[in-house]
């Protein structure tokens, strides 16, 4: 059964292209020209993934993310033009999983769509094991191994990596990571995060200067890619 994708964009030509192109890749695509009708369609169509523009009349992409997150955990990819970093961060904080900057090639969008659909539901936080690609983490005894090799992490580093691994593939904003690991009062202090990410990279990356597990999303945050 083809995966269902809902595309919300007020630009007719973009919904037209995405419907044709995603449709040609065997996705079942429905489109909406504004946030309000997008949410109506979301309730009727039950999509597996939502692609939404950020700047739309009446209901913005951020509000769409927020509304969807109230009732569902399905992946959301936001489309935006460059120069909207703040809006992207807001959208990601409002529940979007990923963003693609316009203009984009279809291959890039298709890759993001496949990655988001693979992610599936959130890991059960009660589960004591995280196994993602090269990474194994045991939450009960705080042991970590990468590519089969055991490493030692401080409690905060462990907490940070566990949260990123549980949300692998998703773009996690600075404030979301800070809020989750250090608590609500530290969401502006990105220098904390930079130091801890630097330390984590030294411990888990084969080449810390060219990270492959913890990828930087410039001005936005970080994304954990579990590897093979």
């Amino acid at each position, binding site marked *: 059964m083809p995966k269902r994708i809902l595309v919300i964009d*007020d*630009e007719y*030509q*973009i919904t*037209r*292209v*995405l419907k*044709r*192109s995603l*449709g*040609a*890749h065997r996705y079942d695509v429905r489109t909406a020209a504004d946030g309000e009708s997008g949410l109506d369609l979301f309730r009727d169509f039950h999509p597996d993934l939502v692609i939404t523009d950020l*700047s*739309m*009349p*009446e209901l913005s992409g951020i509000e769409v993310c927020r509304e969807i997150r109230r009732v569902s955990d399905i992946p959301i990819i936001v*489309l935006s*033009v*460059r*120069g909207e970093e703040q809006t992207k961060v807001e959208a990601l904080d409002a529940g979007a999983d990923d963003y693609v900057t*316009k*203009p*984009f*090639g*279809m*291959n890039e*969008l298709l890759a993001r769509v496949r990655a988001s659909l693979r992610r599936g539901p959130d890991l059960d936080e009660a589960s004591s094991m995280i196994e993602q690609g090269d990474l194994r983490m045991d939450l009960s005894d705080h042991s970590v191994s990468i590519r089969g090799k055991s490493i030692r992490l401080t409690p905060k580093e462990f907490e940070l990596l566990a949260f990123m691994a549980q949300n692998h593939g998703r773009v996690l904003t600075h404030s979301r990571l800070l809020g989750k690991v250090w608590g609500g009062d530290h969401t502006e202090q990105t220098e904390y995060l930079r130091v801890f990410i630097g330390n984590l990279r030294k411990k888990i990356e084969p080449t810390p200067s060219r990270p492959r597990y913890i990828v930087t999303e410039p001005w936005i945050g970080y994304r954990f890619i579990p590897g093979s």
Partner: protein
Amino acid sequence: MGFLRLEKLNRTAKNLLSIAGIILLSAALLPFRQHLNPTEVSLALLLVVLFASSLFGSIAGLIASAIGIVCFNFFFLPPFYTFNITGSENLVAFGAFVVTALIAGQLSGYAKRRAEESEQRQSEIERLYDELKAAFEQASEAEAVRRSEQLKTALLDAVTHDLRTPLTSIKASVTTLLEDAKPAFLDGKSRQEFLEIIDEECDRLNEFIENMVGIAKIEANALSLNRKLTSVEEIVGHAIERARASIGKRSVVVEIQDDLPYIFADAASISEVVFTLLDNAAKYSPAESTIMITARSAADDHVMISVQDQGKGIPAEMRDKIFDKFFQVEEQNIHRTGGGLGLGLAIAKGIVEFHDGSIEVEDGVEGFVTKFVLALPSSDRRKAASPNEEAKA
């Protein structure tokens, strides 16, 4: 200037001048003592006291009074050259002089002090006013800079949006078509649609560039017009044809007055103006609504062309601004209006004004909400009779 110099004297000099004034006057009056009565002398001395107190202040006035009392008594009241006074008349004159000199001296000194204080207050107010004015000027300059920066940012955002949106459709279409080569997964219909999208979006980009060039030409006063006698009917017909895609299912009713005079205009430019009005009317009105175009002759050898729609309307406070370039960028979020860069009406206004005409927006009539009215100079020639036309686009 003399007054100003006196003002600059120090206190001792002022007091000495006051004393000198009394002594000099006494000396001047002394030879005529036999011909003067004490009242006349006292009045003359009082004048000096008044001058001293009003020019140099109450202390100088007081000193002048004291010296005046001494001189009056010593030189002018019998027995002369003593401080004794004989006769009740002289005693009364002396008493009156003493009281008057002291009071008049103090009063005029007080008046001078008040005048000085008032002057000081005045200059203080002027200083504060100047400071306030300078502060306001600085603030308004800062505000102008801030608004200009805001406008630049909004313009940049809008240009980014207007360029990137068609580019996105083109890039997504092209990358899909490129991918299709290895191996093919698109059917003929899909391929055709991607090519159509690329074609339409290229036109959109071209239109965007033409608009930018158009406004630049208008601003540089470099619009070249090929003006000749032109039929309004032809202009309107051409504009409707161009706007057919955006008009969609909307009805377009055209009413052109019988024997409407030709206009002396560049047909392509005026057609562009009518197209802009028509395109806007379609863009901002419901899909099943009606757009009405009327043309009739008006006073002062003008032809009026109006375009009315049944959209949401334009708030009265915005009507003055909608012909400003980048209006949407400045006043509203362009992405939320679904409009372009806000150049269409600015270009339309520029073109119409180059034709010595005018363009205005007002409330619609007979069930219409917004009415744009163009007024263009007409020719003397009359068209051959042409029937009213009604078209459904």
